[in-house]
């Protein structure tokens, strides 16, 4: 049917010629305790180029909120509710949390 043809045409129009699988990813960043104090935010959507690492996310955040430098050396990152490190590649819809030094109990 014509509908199918139209869909195909639309898809082709959206395809970017050079990169595969889309060229950017959108993640959600969560700020807790001191990180929230420093940024004034509890959460923030962040767009990055596909293949970006958690370190790239951090760099982008520090560029936007230089005061985060204060906790860079003492905090840990969590990706989708699990502790992670700076070299992990983030995927679309990932949730990245800045975990300043904890103090439960």
């Amino acid at each position: 049917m014509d509908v199918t043809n139209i869909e195909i045409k639309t898809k082709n129009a959206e395809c970017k010629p050079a990169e595969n699988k889309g060229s950017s990813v959108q993640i959600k960043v969560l700020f807790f305790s001191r990180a929230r104090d420093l940024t004034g935010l509890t959460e923030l959507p962040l767009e990055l180029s596909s293949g970006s690492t958690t370190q790239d996310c951090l760099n982008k955040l520090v560029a936007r909120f230089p005061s985060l430098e204060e906790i860079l050396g003492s905090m840990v990152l969590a990706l989708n509710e699990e502790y992670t490190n700076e070299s992990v590649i983030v995927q679309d819809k990932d949730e990245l949390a800045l975990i300043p030094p904890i103090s439960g109990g």
Partner: protein
Amino acid sequence: MAEEERTQVEILEENNLIDMTKYITYVSAPQAGGIATFAGTTRDTFEGKSVVELRYEAYVPMAIRCIKSMCSSARSSWNLHSIAVAHRLGSVPVGETSIFIAVSSVHRADALDACKFLIDELKATVPIWKKEVYANGEVWKENSEFAERRLELGKDRICSGRKVEVKAGDRKTCCGSKVKVDG
């Protein structure tokens, strides 16, 4: 698995008091000869300063995941019957309980050792934060246990999911136990 059903984890929203009896009742069982508990309460002073209250917040879904994970670790090291862990959020005034852990086992040594492990592990790995509030200021606290564990946490992409083995016979009190961690 049956053991999963005997682990209760609760993060209590603001203004909910911890009902210790409820958790002790939960872990009680005819076959469990020992119940060990730990209650963490807000102290009235820190380094000479008067504390008004502690204020807690948490990355709740990850905190629950981490606590469940540390309970699994405890079960792989000790023979346990039931575990209950409850942590309050929001303001916890002086004298009130912010965290409660109850563990039951057939023989008391397992419950006692696991209880200590659980509070130590919570302080090192679970994403909960507290602010100490004084008359003239407030400060985010930092657990030394976390500082010691920090570099390991990020490396293995875990949330306290590593199995911890305790060498038999290391029954020293207070900071003396050797802990072997599976690589």
